[in-house]
């Protein structure tokens, strides 16, 4: 009996299905008598995966080449040549995509969203520069990253910034990184790609606003070395951290430093640390006090940061299109207002208002927790930068600051010491 019933229901379903199909075809396809052959519906294939492999191989080749130029040849010319290659290939030919800076967001989205998996090329562009940095310092920044390279070739009259200004501006990339992670994790937007100042120039299709920003960055980088890299790039701060523990960072002198001070002002990024005179060690009591004080300030900063940012979580969430739509719908009055394209799209989608409100409430909740974490993260970064300022570090020679140095190799030719 059950079997008959299921067969019957299947038949009914089939009939309904057929009826639905017949309904969509208002004008049935004619039976041609003239021997007409129908063209094939065009469905062009995407760019073959082999090209993604070429991108990754070229990245590895460029990284290896520039590392060899910096570490073995100690040649600035080599760095410039690799930079030009990167600008032409990764910049203009590949139109700035795929890029390591943006790949941070793919990684975050893949970690938080189980339905998304990251393209292997994007993952390679995220990981390979990190691995090279772990071994050789930020050679990726030196001239493989097209964004860094294009600023570096514009640097003609470097001026040095005040130390405090560098420290303060150096906090911006952390905030930018935190925001980018928040928006990528909630699946809202990829802000790093959206506000990339140079990609519009590489593609020759920037909006006026983005072109103005890109041009301003290039103009600034004539005087101030790499403004985007130092004060905005979210991938740069990750590389900065990794580079601090790198195994073979570039050393200014090929043999041993004779403290001739010739390289002292050669760095356009002010990333050369000067020798520190031997100082009396801080006594134990003051060190303990400092430690306890910092141990209290950092958590306090994290809590304050979390509280402050979480107060703005609704504003942050307005970037999300679903939240924006729900908000628009809430204030929509069909008598006085003209229906926007978004509301029209929503109406035709057949979703109910309640579903949308529930979805947007869930997203708002994510943003609430996310903004607490973002605020705590910013607080932690502020606290640790404070702690870094109080740290005393003994140094005998002129050394590159392993974190800030982008291995552009400008300082190398200032060193008069011959390698042995």
């Amino acid at each position, binding site marked *: 009996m059950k079997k008959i019933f299921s067969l019957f229901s299947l038949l009914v379903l089939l009939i309904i299905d057929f009826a639905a199909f017949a309904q969509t075809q208002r004008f049935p396809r004619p039976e041609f008598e003239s021997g007409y052959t129908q063209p094939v519906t*065009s469905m062009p294939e995407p760019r073959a995966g082999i090209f993604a492999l070429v991108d990754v191989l070229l990245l590895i080749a460029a990284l290896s080449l520039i590392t060899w130029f910096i570490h073995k040849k100690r040649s600035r010319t080599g760095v410039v040549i690799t930079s030009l290659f990167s600008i032409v290939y990764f910049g203009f030919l590949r139109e700035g995509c795929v890029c390591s800076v943006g790949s941070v967001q793919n990684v975050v989205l893949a970690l938080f969203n189980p339905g998304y998996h990251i393209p292997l090329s*994007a*993952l390679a562009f995220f990981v390979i520069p990190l691995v090279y940095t772990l071994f050789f310092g930020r050679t990726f920044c030196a001239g493989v990253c097209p964004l860094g390279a294009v600023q570096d070739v514009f640097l003609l009259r470097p001026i040095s910034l005040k130390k405090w200004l560098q420290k303060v501006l150096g906090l911006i990339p952390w905030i930018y990184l935190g925001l980018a992670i928040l928006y990528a994790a909630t699946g809202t*937007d990829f802000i790093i790609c959206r506000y990339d100042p140079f990609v519009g120039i590489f593609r020759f299709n920037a909006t006026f606003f983005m072109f103005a920003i890109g041009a301003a960055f290039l103009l600034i980088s004539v005087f101030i070395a790499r403004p985007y890299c130092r004060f905005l790039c979210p991938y740069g701060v990750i590389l900065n951290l990794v580079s601090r*523990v790198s195994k073979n960072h570039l050393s200014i002198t090929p043999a041993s430093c004779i403290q001739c001070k010739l390289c002292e002002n050669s760095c356009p990024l002010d990333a050369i640390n000067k020798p520190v005179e031997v100082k009396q060690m801080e006594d134990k009591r003051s060190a303990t006090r400092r430690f306890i004080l910092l141990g209290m300030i950092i958590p306090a900063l994290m809590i304050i940061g979390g509280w402050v940012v979480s107060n703005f979580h609704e504003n942050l969430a307005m970037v999300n299109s679903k939240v924006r739509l729900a908000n628009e719908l809430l204030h929509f009055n069909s008598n006085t207002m003209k229906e926007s394209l978004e509301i029209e799209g929503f109406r035709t989608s057949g979703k109910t208002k309640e579903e949308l409100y529930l979805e947007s409430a869930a997203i708002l909740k994510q943003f609430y927790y996310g903004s607490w974490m973002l605020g705590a993260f910013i607080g932690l970064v502020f606290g640790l930068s404070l702690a870094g300022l109080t740290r005393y570090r003994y140094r005998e020679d002129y050394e590159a600051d392993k974190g800030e140095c982008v291995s552009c190799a400008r300082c190398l030719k200032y060193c008069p010491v011959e390698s042995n």
Partner: protein
Amino acid sequence: MKKDRREFINTCFRFAAGASIVGVAGVLASKSAKGDFFWQLDPTKCTQCGRCATSCVVTPSAVKCIHVYDMCGYCDLCGGYFRPNVKNLSTGAENMLCPTGAIKRTYVEDPYFKYEIIDELCIGCGKCVKGCGAFGNGSLQLQISHDLCVNCNECAIARDCPSDAFKRVPLEEAYQFAGFKTNKKI
């Protein structure tokens, strides 16, 4: 002694950083072995708002009108080709709905006409799609042309789409037509 301690801490951090990079890469790579995603426009959700023509990072847009010939009724009075209330059914520019003249109308046999999209001229505005959907079979559909699409991290049209019609799909599911299933071999 002091130098040694600093060196030791550095080594510890280096290994920790290395391990976390390898860990993250391993976890993500095992997931990505399934293949890449491509952007797909769902024609059942599309409202032909016209933003595909303006939001794409590629100019002209990588979204094109694609003609599903199997669904076409070969009408003389084509809702996708002619403007509404057109006086005579000729190929004159004043009669055309397409702003760039990207649809080619050719006579097949009485009373049927063939309509072809000239890809180079199509800007993906969706005007013909709307017309065909309203008066005809809906055989003209907007699709992402994957030879032109640069497959951005975050599709600029997807961000601006008012009906949420863009999603990432595996390669096998690219080119999904409304009301018609294709046996494509790509």
